[in-house]
């Protein structure tokens, strides 16, 4: 298609089909945050489509925005290389392997999940999920609860969440408090 050549944003940008193939690979071989590592390897180290700095910018952006970090970075990569079409393609290609595998597992679970022999295995999975959620809370807490103000905010949020506050309102309210009171000040810029 002649239009394809016209939308190329930079001369070193890959074709859409190559981009899609790489994203399919990342989606099929990376797990959770591990995808970021695979993505970096494919896009920066092996193919030099982006520099390390450009990739790090995408990672910083993904940390600012909602959504899974790896998916945000993939969309950023797609946008930087091939604009909106690239971004859309990267999202879909990244999700296709996960979607297909999850669909298969879901159907299997709904059919065979009640098999008594598997009860123990699912109980074990419960324990893993509780541990995973706690480990993520620990990881985010360790890097984000750095001041007394943030720790107090966490305690207030904890009480509110226990009392069944609306979680969307809670997140946005805490963000607002942060934007008003916790933003970095020029004179306090040194850590």
């Amino acid at each position, binding site marked *: 298609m002649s239009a394809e050549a016209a939308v190329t944003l930079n001369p070193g940008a890959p074709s859409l089909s190559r981009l899609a193939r790489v994203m399919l690979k990342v989606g099929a071989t990376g797990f959770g945050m591990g995808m970021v590592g695979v993505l970096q390897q494919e896009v920066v180290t092996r193919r030099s489509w982006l520099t390390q700095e450009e990739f790090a910018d995408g990672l910083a952006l993904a940390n600012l925005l909602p959504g*899974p970090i790896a998916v945000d970075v993939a969309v950023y990569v797609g946008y930087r290389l091939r604009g909106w079409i690239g971004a859309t393609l990267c999202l879909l290609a990244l999700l296709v392997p996960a979607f297909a595998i999850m669909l298969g597992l879901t159907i299997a679970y709904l059919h065979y999940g009640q098999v008594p022999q598997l009860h123990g295995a699912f109980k074990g999975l*419960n324990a893993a999920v509780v541990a995973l959620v706690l480990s993520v809370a620990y990881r985010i807490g360790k890097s984000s609860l750095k001041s007394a103000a943030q720790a107090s905010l966490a305690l207030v949020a904890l009480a509110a969440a226990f009392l069944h506050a609306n979680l969307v309102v809670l997140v946005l309210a805490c963000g607002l408090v942060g934007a008003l009171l916790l933003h970095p000040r020029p004179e306090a810029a040194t850590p």
Partner: protein
Amino acid sequence: MNLLRLALVFGKIGAVVFGGGFVMIPFIQREVVQHYGWLTQQQFVDAIALGQITPGPILISATFIGYKVQGLTGAVVATLAVFLPSFLMTALAARQMMRLRRNPRVAGFIRGVLPAVVAMLLVAAITIARSTVWFDWRLLFLVVVSLILLVRYKVDAVYVVVGSGIAGFLLER
């Protein structure tokens, strides 16, 4: 209309999962399990575990929930809806990258959101634990071992999930 409600619920969750895919857990628990009753607590926890052993983002658990609610169409709608908000925001922000990063208000917003995320995750962990592992000391022990492996030894989550499944299977025999 179930399909529209599914799209709205997952679109809303997709717009507020600051801090990565795991942050969806408290939201999904509140909306999908407690409010709409689309899933039992047990199915919800299993959906997360399955999302964990599937390559790709954890948020793919949305596929499970969508399928449970409305079959294949539901799976497609829930999956697209949950990723759409962050897709749009990322692509739009990719242009404004440098300005956004240097804006102190944006940095402040994230500094305020993350403590809330930590609190919500703790509440979600307690809620899940109370309905599953609370009354069985062997499972509580498995939680502690898994936590140590994840935090102290940085073992990949996939191995912890599969290992816990096998341990649970052996304990129950």
